[in-house]
């Protein structure tokens, strides 16, 4: 274990693994932040990652180029989110129930359709994906360089999206409106903001981001589609949203912490069976609960999250 810290190459390897494990979760968590800030629980992130992964595989398989896969994957994520928006925002269905329905639907549908579309070869195919591109200069910095700046285009897109969503959320009128709608929809409505329209925009973007997380799994990591490959990443993203206090930057750091835990537990499973690897699987969730209790700084969820908003008179 200790040689990770002493050997720079091994340290860089370890950190690169941690980053790669956290990238899909970061995309989904950004989506979660956006959706919950606007007042909509997105328990369906898991299903949306899966839909994105399936879309990426379908697009990549038939077009032979990862760019088409990327577009289809994001599109599938947005479609799932449209379902959540129609149910949760327009029809006023309980958002948690809607999210669970989306997860069940996508779990079944992607597993079923992948057999149909790929003729049972989903597990053996090898799709063209995105390859790492070293950024000249930056990539040569010891340890940090290869970890952060020798990545593929989706990781660079992730950096940009985190910065962009942080800027939008806290430095633009649009972000102010989103936060207002999530805290006090009635007041926002009175101020002339269309609550449903803004919630639709946030939920759909959230689905696109989760779909992007699925694309990363397929187009940058595994190059194939397998059943239930999201493997709980959508739920880890929900925990990251909490620990990150509903901020894009906070969620980024929470996801990176979870990525380190994940990389540690993977390493422990093989290297040192004496230490229970489950401790590191549990850690993210336990830390999130401690954060909620206020032991790690007290986060407060948006006041109106999960509540359906309806104008009193029509």
């Amino acid at each position, binding site marked *: 274990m200790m040689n990770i810290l002493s050997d720079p190459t091994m340290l860089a390897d370890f950190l690169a693994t941690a980053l790669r494990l956290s990238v899909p979760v970061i995309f989904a968590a950004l989506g979660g932040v956006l959706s919950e800030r606007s007042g909509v*629980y997105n*328990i369906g992130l898991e299903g949306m990652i899966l839909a994105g992964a399936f879309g990426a595989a379908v697009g990549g398989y038939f077009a032979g180029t990862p760019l088409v896969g990327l577009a289809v994957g994001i599109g599938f994520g947005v479609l799932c989110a449209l*379902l959540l928006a129609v*149910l949760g925002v327009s*029809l*006023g*269905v*309980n958002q*948690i*129930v*809607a999210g*669970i*329905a*989306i*997860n*069940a*639907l*996508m*779990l*079944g*549908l992607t*597993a*079923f*359709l992948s*057999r*149909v579309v790929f003729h049972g070869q989903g597990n053996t195919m090898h799709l063209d994906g995105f390859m790492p591109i070293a950024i000249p200069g930056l990539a040569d910095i010891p340890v940090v360089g290869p970890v952060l700046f020798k990545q593929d285009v989706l990781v660079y897109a992730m950096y940009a999206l985190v910065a962009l969503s942080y800027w939008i959320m806290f430095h633009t009128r649009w972000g102010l409106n989103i936060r207002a709608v999530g805290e006090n929809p009635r007041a926002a409505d009175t101020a002339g903001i269309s609550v449903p329209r803004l919630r639709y925009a946030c939920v759909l973007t959230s689905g696109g981001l989760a779909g992007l997380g699925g694309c990363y799994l397929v187009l940058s990591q595994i190059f194939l589609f397998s*059943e239930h490959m999201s493997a*709980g990443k959508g*739920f880890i993203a*929900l*925990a990251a949203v*909490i620990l990150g206090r509903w901020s894009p930057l906070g969620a980024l750091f929470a996801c990176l912490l979870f990525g380190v835990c994940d990389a540690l537990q993977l390493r422990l499973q093989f290297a040192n069976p004496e230490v*229970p690897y*489950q*401790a590191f*699987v*549990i850690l993210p*969730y*336990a830390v*999130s*609960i401690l954060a*909620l*209790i*206020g032991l790690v700084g007290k986060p407060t*969820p948006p006041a109106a999250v*999960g509540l359906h908003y309806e104008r009193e008179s029509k």
Partner: protein
Amino acid sequence: MVAAVRLLYATKSVWAILCALLVGAIVIMAGGSDPLAAYAALFHGAFFEYHGIATTLVKMSPLLLAGLAVVLPLRAGLFNIGAEGQIYLGALFATLAALYLPAMPGWLHITVCSLAGMLGGALWALVPAYLKAWHNINEVIVTLLMNYIGINLISYAVSGPMMDEGAPYPYSAEIREDLWLPHILPRTDAHLGVVIGVALAVLMYFVLERTSIGYSINTVGRNPQAARYAGMSVRQHIVWTLVAGGALAGLAGTYEVLGLKYRLFHMFSAGYGYDGIVVAFLSGSHPLYAILAALFLGGLRSGANIMQRAVGVPTTVVDSIEGLVVIFVATSLAFRFERSRWAVLWRRRKDVDAALAGAGEK
């Protein structure tokens, strides 16, 4: 005419389920199979065949208990999405009681195991309940997070200290045979768990609808302010309903061990806790309808295997159908007779009648 339309609206859940099955049929057709043959195999296998019915009852047991675990707190206005974790903790406590307590007569030991399982689930629910009642921390988030801690705790237990000697896969030692739950159908896996689940559903119905305890739970759920003014402790209701829900989920886990697997397995619950939310939703958080909802979902799960063997349609299609059922039923709830054009016309006719009657009197 209006009566017919009213009936159409009253039975909207049935139509919603049919719509879900219709979309499911399109999915099955896309897979190159005959949807009618697939559904025939599924429903015949699940409800009209001895061993199929037995499997349906086996699946129904955890679905119903997990459903009740969600229904009870929901009545007090709390969303328990932690039934999955509570199921695992219940199974752990029951297995510990079965393996490590001194031997007792079978029936007594089964009772002790059941109580231990309920305690496990209850303790796991106590954390979110306490945090909600005293610190106003969102129970949706905490119960969700507790699931993963619970699942991995059991994973650690059965791959570490409780692992059976020489086991190829993380599971505990087998429990004594006189601790196995009695079977209700000979030569099948159907065990007593489902009977206990139905009994508890009926009991919950009476408590919720016919007793003062139930009345105060419903009041706290509908209008906590009013409940407070009426002298009810909102805090106590939050804690007790959530903890009792946890105990029910714990019982679901207990009977998976005592009734079906006879060991504690790593990852043994196939998402029964989340399916419990679906059961609670489909039942409209009514304990008696929860029996029907659990029977339906149990039938889908049991029929799926028969369908796969008979027609070659993969069982995963059933997950999509479950999701579709929830989506369509949820959508149907947004359509209310009182809001429909029919209701407007009906009211108009009544107004005209009333006006005519008034004219006649003069």
